[in-house]
């Protein structure tokens, strides 16, 4: 067997696992590993400007490809800076492996320089974590970390490696055995046969069914199967925020996003359904509104790889634990076997749904002299479509995120990248960088707000250094729009701490990095302007679009109501 030291084993095992890109930030506790990375022919390291940025980049890389994102940081502050990014990945079940340096084993527990209990600090926000107490643990723990991160309900895994375990002087056998077995960890993949038969019977019986897709469809690569089932039974399809891009938006059976800022037709269809066929969703509070009032007449079939997500909030009538793609394939087989056809009454259901659609809940009125944020997203989506560009779109969190979810038409899975679970402002820009590294020939757009963008704008340096052609669109309304809209409606327009006075001139800001920035204040040539920007395929552009401060995201579910207790933007029409 080959003899390697601990630091060499870190790099070698990553290479053997097929890792080609790492996002990180060095420090005292990982210098040995960085020294080995210096010679690696297979792994390219990207130096972020903040550890949170590094892990968000790995996150964007993972979300856009389905591969495990890898990041490496030092002990203490290096590790604590990643906590938000880990929690973001955990919230949306994204496969990541984070390697953290740790003080030497003899110093652990002595409050040493840059010592923090990384396992303890990160425990609630990771799927699992390892502390390598001896060098011999390193390779096997990293292999286990990849296995855990990328199977079952995916998620981030931390591997903490003390400095002395990386010791260059200590050589030991490198075990290149690639199979990993963890006796206490066996995710269920196949759905229970009896449950699948029951589900198919209910599906065929339902007069007013609806298919609800969540992030599990995107992360579980189950889009093709979803489309096949929806087509064969003529089912309407509704998506959660995380499910967006899991079903082609241009398909007439697609009704869009449900929930707090969901579309009128999506929420009404859910509420009036007699069967919900839910795949890879956890019925989160933003999706369901008050659980006790949720879809009163619906039988619920719930497919999820995580048994703890089933009947956690909404009780499932037919629970099926398993991998989304595998279970849907089983359902397709069963449908074929029983020669399943759309229910005879499905057209009556579609008649009702088409009435819901007549509400045109996303219509808005243009205002003179000021750009409406909806207009920006709608135009951007339209221009992309016309140019035949199928961009990866990342967002931050707030009004711009909801407008993107509502107005942008996503046709392919993994093309919408957003923080749904944790709601992390600051994910969008570094995630766009990660997605651009993973997809160098594709268009990557970051849609952000003037508040969110400032949370991780230090990563502009990466764009400069690697000449990444990311396009950033800032919906710049000079306020924290989402909080402000709460204040407008529920706090008598008392705008406490939502004014972003002191914003930089974003154009000059990016110019300081020798990057191109433009400001748009007038919607007269929005389409032409956007076309020009998107056709400049090789260059970064930041587009600072000055938008209306008073526009609210609508529809808007009333708290503690059902899914149809919606405020609509009637003033707009």
């Amino acid at each position, binding site marked *: 067997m080959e003899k390697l030291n601990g630091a060499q084993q870190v790099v070698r095992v990553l290479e053997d696992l097929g890792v080609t890109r790492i996002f990180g930030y060095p420090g005292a506790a990982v210098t040995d590993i960085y020294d080995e990375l210096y010679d690696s022919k297979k792994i390219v390291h990207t130096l972020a400007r903040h550890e949170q940025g590094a892990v968000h980049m790995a996150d964007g890389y993972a979300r856009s490809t389905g591969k495990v994102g890898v990041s490496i940081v030092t002990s203490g502050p290096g590790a604590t800076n990643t906590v938000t990014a880990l929690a973001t990945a955990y919230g949306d079940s994204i496969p990541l492996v984070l390697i953290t340096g740790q003080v030497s084993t003899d110093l652990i527990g002595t409050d040493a320089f840059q010592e923090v209990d990384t*396992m303890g600090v990160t*425990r*609630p926000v990771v799927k699992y974590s390892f502390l390598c107490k001896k060098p011999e643990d390193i390779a096997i723990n990293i292999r286990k970390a990849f296995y855990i991160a990328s199977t079952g309900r995916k998620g981030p895994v931390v591997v903490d490696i003390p400095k002395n375990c990386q010791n260059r002087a200590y050589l030991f056998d490198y075990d290149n055995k690639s199979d990993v077995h963890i*006796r*206490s960890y066996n995710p269920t993949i196949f759905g229970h046969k009896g449950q699948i038969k029951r589900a198919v019977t209910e599906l065929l019986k339902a007069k007013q069914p609806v298919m609800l897709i969540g992030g599990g469809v995107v992360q579980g690569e189950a889009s093709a199967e979803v489309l096949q089932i929806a087509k064969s039974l003529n089912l309407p399809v509704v998506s959660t925020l995380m499910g967006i891009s899991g079903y082609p938006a241009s398909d007439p059976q697609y009704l869009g996003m449900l929930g707090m800022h969901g579309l009128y037709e999506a929420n009404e269809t859910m509420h009036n359904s007699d069967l919900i066929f839910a795949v890879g969703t956890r019925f989160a509070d933003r999706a369901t509104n008050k659980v006790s009032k949720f879809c009163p007449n619906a039988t619920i079939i719930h497919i999820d790889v*995580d*048994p*703890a997500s089933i*009947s956690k909030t909404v009780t499932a009538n037919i629970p099926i634990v398993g991998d989304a793609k595998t279970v849907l394939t089983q359902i397709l087989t069963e449908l074929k076997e029983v020669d399943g056809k759309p229910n005879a009454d499905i057209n009556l259901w579609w008649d009702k749904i088409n009435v819901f659609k007549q509400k045109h809940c996303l219509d808005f009125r243009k205002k003179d002299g000021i750009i409406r944020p909806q207009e920006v997203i709608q135009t951007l989506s339209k221009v992309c479509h016309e140019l035949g560009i199928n961009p990866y779109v990342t967002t931050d969190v707030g009004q711009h995120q909801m407008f993107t979810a509502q107005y942008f038409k996503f046709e392919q899975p993994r093309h919408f990248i957003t923080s749904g679970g944790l709601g992390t402002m600051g994910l969008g820009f570094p995630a766009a960088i990660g997605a651009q590294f993973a997809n160098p020939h594709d268009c990557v757009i970051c849609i952000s707000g003037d508040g969110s963008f400032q949370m991780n704008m230090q990563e502009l340096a990466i764009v400069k250094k690697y000449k990444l052609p990311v396009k950033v669109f800032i919906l710049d309304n000079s306020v924290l729009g989402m909080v402000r809209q709460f204040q407008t409606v529920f706090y008598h327009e008392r705008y406490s701490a939502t004014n972003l006075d002191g914003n930089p001139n974003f154009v000059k800001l990016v110019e300081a990095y020798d990057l191109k920035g433009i400001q748009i204040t007038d919607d007269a040539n929005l389409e032409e302007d956007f076309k020009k920007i998107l056709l400049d395929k090789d260059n970064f552009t930041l587009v600072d679009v000055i938008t209306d401060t008073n526009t609210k995201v609508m529809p808007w579910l009333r708290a503690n109501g059902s899914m149809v207790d919606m405020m609509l933007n009637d003033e707009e029409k």
Partner: protein
Amino acid sequence: MRHVISILIENEAGALSRVVGLFSQRGYNIDSLTVAPTDDPTLSRCTILTTGEKDEAEQITKQLHKLVCVFRVSALFEEAEGGIEREMVLVKVNTPNRNVRDEVKGLADIFSAKIIDVNAEIFTLEYVGTSSETDNFIQTLCKLAEVVEVVRSGVLGIAKGTHYMKP
């Protein structure tokens, strides 16, 4: 409702903190917790006593099972044949005079408790029973003598009959 949950976990650093962390993270109560390695030293057996609604207990078992370090989980009294629980208590009582000493000795006999340490002023007793039997023992003892210290082990549980938790 009272639930006794048995868990088999990997005997490794951080495993117990994940179990405990899960309870605090999700707002569940731990009324008692016992843990020790099993005959297989790579595994630890843990018994947790908790209170909550039935669906809450179900959610706890699911969440526990989801932990990578957790091998087996079962809610003892939801098993077909039910479960057996035991708790040990060590009690120190003041025994200032002969009268009290006799009373305490007599009570120990009735309860089949043992007097495991004796000196002129203080007796130390050991009692094993279910939680409610243990409660009863302590309460009765309190009426006869001045109890100065009580240490309870927390509940240990095992399934009845042919059921057993295999690794």
